[in-house]
C-alpha cells in the first residue's frame, strides 16, 4: 500500500525567508501528486498538481512554486514567505484506477511570523 511522507511536520519561519517542503511517496509508481493548503478556518485549496516528472500545473497564482524532480518526490517552495502563507500544507497522490480517489500525507504546519 502507498505511504506519503511529508517533511518537516511543523515549521516556523520569518516573513521574507525561503521555504522548501518535501513530499515523498512509497508503494506506487507514476502517481499524480497534489499540494493543498488549509488556512485557518478554511477548506482545502488546491495549489499545484503534477502528472509526471517535471510537469507542474498551478491552480492559484501566488509566490509559491512546485517541482517534481523524481517520480515520487514533490517539493513546494517559496523564495520569500508572506504572512498569508501560514497554514497547513497537505500532499496527496491519486491512486491509479481508483476513481480519482486521493490519498493524503500527514501534513506540514507552517507558521510565518
Amino acid at each position: 500500500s502507498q505511504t506519503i511522507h511529508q517533511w518537516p511536520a511543523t515549521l516556523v519561519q520569518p516573513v521574507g525567508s525561503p521555504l522548501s517542503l518535501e513530499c515523498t511517496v512509497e508503494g506506487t509508481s507514476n502517481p499524480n501528486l497534489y499540494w493543498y493548503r488549509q488556512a485557518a478556518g478554511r477548506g482545502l485549496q488546491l495549489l499545484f498538481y503534477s502528472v509526471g516528472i517535471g510537469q507542474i500545473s498551478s491552480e492559484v497564482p501566488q509566490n509559491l512554486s512546485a517541482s517534481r524532480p523524481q517520480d515520487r518526490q514533490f517539493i513546494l517552495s517559496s523564495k520569500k514567505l508572506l504572512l498569508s502563507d501560514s497554514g497547513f500544507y497537505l500532499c496527496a497522490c491519486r491512486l491509479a484506477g481508483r476513481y480519482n480517489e486521493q490519498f493524503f500525507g500527514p501534513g506540514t504546519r507552517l507558521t510565518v511570523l
Partner: protein
Amino acid sequence: AQSVTQLDSHVSVSEGTPVLLRCNYSSSYSPSLFWYVQHPNKGLQLLLKYTSAATLVKGINGFEAEFKKSETSFHLTKPSAHMSDAAEYFCVVSVSDMRFGAGTRLTVKP
C-alpha cells in the same frame, strides 16, 4: 463542471446520539463521491466512497452515506456518535478532478 456544498459548517451532537452531516453536489456527469475525515493537525483519511455501485455506502468507524441522485445529495450518517468522532469532515465530488466542500466541524458532547 462539478461542485459540492456542505450545508452545515458546524454540527454539535451528544455522545450516543445520531450524526447527520449534509452534502449536496452538482455535476454534469455521473460523479464519484467521497467523505474524508480530518482530526486536528492530521492528514485526511478516507471514510467512504460512492462509485456508481450500491447507493448506500458503508465506511469505516460505523459511518455510512446514501447517494440520492434525485436530490443530488450524499449525506453522511452514523447511528451513535462517539467522542472520537469529533473532527472535520469533507465531502468531495469527482469527475475529472476532485472538488472539496468547505468542511463540517463535528463536535461531540459528553
